[in-house]
């Protein structure tokens, strides 16, 4: 099976430098794309059916197509590498082990978008990624893949800069990210206008996830049909999926889109550790609804997971085992979201700490049945439609599904506190 995202990755060896990367077929998509019309590249990516890998899954080519025609002013591509969704560690893998793939994807994408500047917004804590990206960018300049007349194409000028952040989950929200990049407090912006029309400094901007852009070289170099055949059945492409928690072999791997959760959990992650049983799992990060063992045979596809009442999110699943308290797990997630709320919208700023307070009481055994009703009410108060961005609605997801699947445990906590170790 072709593994376009990880073919150059070998854990334990240094990532390919420019020459090694090029020898392995790297930068072919740049040489090909400069002979194409930018609009044809956008259509190609749209037809391929690549969905954004940051969690929302929107068709990437379609997102690009909303950028208005060039007016002579600046246009930007911004890479969202602010990976901070609890349980998610895929962009780290891609950048640490094959930084040139991201740079190649950015160059090809900037050609399609007719953008002259690309920014990589990287999580500040990803220090190895930072060093390797700076090295890769520098090599790309030295080899004529960045700067004036990229790959010898007259008039195709491109600069790529690395911005390292300083730790705030909200910067993963694309409009908050743009504010952060402009040097402002990272509050989300009202939409519309969407960034494609009015983004960085009010100019047309596309914000894409790291993994999304790492898919572009393969699609452009090998074509739509090749890409679509990578998935299982009717599903298209490959994606990085992974498992954390008490499994035998936690990690993340490039898998065909459409394999089942069970395949990922058993074939790749080796199943549960001895003495632990699967109680539930979060399918794609801390802001997705719990799924139960009966959902293991669902394909890892956004549509299928949505029908089961959750979201595929980042497709890195987190396993809740039978010896870990589900109420404590939800409390931990809520504590994270409460801490990371930017404070702009009341349901998020006030709602999350309130939920955290109630869950603390539950763990200590001082909660009441009335508190369970309040938690239930809070899932609606923090739900979609009440806030600028998806932070609070996302935080409500593990809580609402937790109340659905673990009501007995919540009630037991009211009676005698937490009985797990």
């Amino acid at each position, binding site marked *: 099976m072709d593994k376009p995202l990880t073919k150059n990755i070998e854990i334990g060896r240094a990532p390919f430098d420019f020459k090694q990367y090029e020898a392995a077929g790297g930068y072919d998509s740049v040489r090909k794309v400069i002979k194409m019309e930018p609009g044809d590249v956008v259509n190609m990516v749209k037809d391929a059916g690549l969905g954004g890998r940051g969690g929302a899954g929107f068709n990437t080519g379609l997102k690009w197509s909303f950028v208005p025609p060039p007016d002579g002013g*600046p246009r930007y591509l911004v890479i969202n590498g602010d*990976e*901070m*969704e*609890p*349980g*998610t*560690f895929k*962009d*780290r893998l891609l950048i640490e082990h094959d930084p040139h793939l991201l740079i190649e994807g950015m160059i090809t994408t900037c050609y399609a978008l007719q953008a002259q500047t690309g920014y990589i917004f990287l*999580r*500040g*804590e*990803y*220090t*190895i990624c930072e060093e390797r990206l700076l090295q890769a960018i520098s090599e790309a300049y030295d080899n004529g893949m960045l700067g004036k007349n990229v790959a010898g194409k007259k008039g195709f000028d491109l600069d790529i*800069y690395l*911005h*390292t*952040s*300083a*730790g*705030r*989950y909200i910067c993963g929200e694309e409009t908050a990210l743009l504010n*952060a*990049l*402009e*040097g*402002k*407090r*990272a509050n989300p912006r009202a939409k519309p206008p969407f960034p494609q029309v009015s983004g960085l*400094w009010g100019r047309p901007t596309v914000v894409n996830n790291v993994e999304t852009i790492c898919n572009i070289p393969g699609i452009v170099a090998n074509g739509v049909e090749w890409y679509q055949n990578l998935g299982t059945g009717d599903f298209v492409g490959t994606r990085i999926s*992974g*498992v*954390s*928690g*008490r499994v035998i072999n*936690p*990690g*993340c791997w490039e898998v065909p889109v459409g394999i089942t959760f069970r395949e990922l959990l058993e074939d790749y992650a080796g199943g549960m550790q001895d003495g632990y049983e699967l109680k539930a799992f979060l399918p794609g990060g*801390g802001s997705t609804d719990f799924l139960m063992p009966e959902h293991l045979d669902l394909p890892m596809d956004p549509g299928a997971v949505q029908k089961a009442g959750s979201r595929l999110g980042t497709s*890195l699943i*987190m396993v*809740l*085992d039978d010896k*870990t308290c589900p109420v*404590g*797990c939800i409390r*931990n*997630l809520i504590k*994270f979201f409460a*801490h*990371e709320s*930017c404070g702009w919208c009341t349901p998020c700023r006030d709602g999350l700490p309130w939920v955290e307070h109630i869950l603390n009481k539950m763990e200590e055994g001082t909660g009441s049945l009335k508190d369970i009703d309040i938690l239930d009410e809070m899932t609606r108060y923090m739900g979609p439609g009440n806030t600028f961005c998806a932070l609070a609605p996302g935080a409500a997801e593990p809580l609402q599904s937790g109340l659905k699947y673990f009501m007995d445990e919540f009630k037991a906590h009211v009676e005698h506190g937490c009985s797990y170790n």
Partner: protein
Amino acid sequence: MNNLIASTAVKARELTPEEIKEIEHEKTHYPYAQAVGLEALKIVQKYQGWVSDESLLAVSEYLDIPPDELEGVATFFNMIFRRPVGKNVILLCDSVACWMLGCDSLNEHFKKTLGIDYGETTADDMFTLIPVPCLGACDRAPVMMIGRETYYNLTTEKIDEIIAEYKAKG
């Protein structure tokens, strides 16, 4: 914490030549100087260990960003320290995967061996312990960072070894 920014008693300090050189380099990446605000605070912190009021005002004056706006950025980000920290900042991940695999017991271990809880600094100013949201290495949990180094698959024994190395370095 005293908010000295409002006080006229605090004056901007001089930025060092190294700080200015790095800030100038960052400025070439953006069309507007305000965009460099966070990077400049990080540069200052790299050299000074933390961002004092005097440093904040210096960056504010240098980049012509109003101090309250820059303070809004400085206090927003987890990794900008507006209070003095020890020589080595230990960032212990306390998010869900690390929590499941026992980060609370590691926190207890730090309390016992270094005598510090979250937000505290050892008396010799060697270590500050801070919880950090998900470090994105959940397959190798529990995880922590010290400075720019990340440490994986932690146990109390492993932590003792790592801390001993930092102590030996002085």
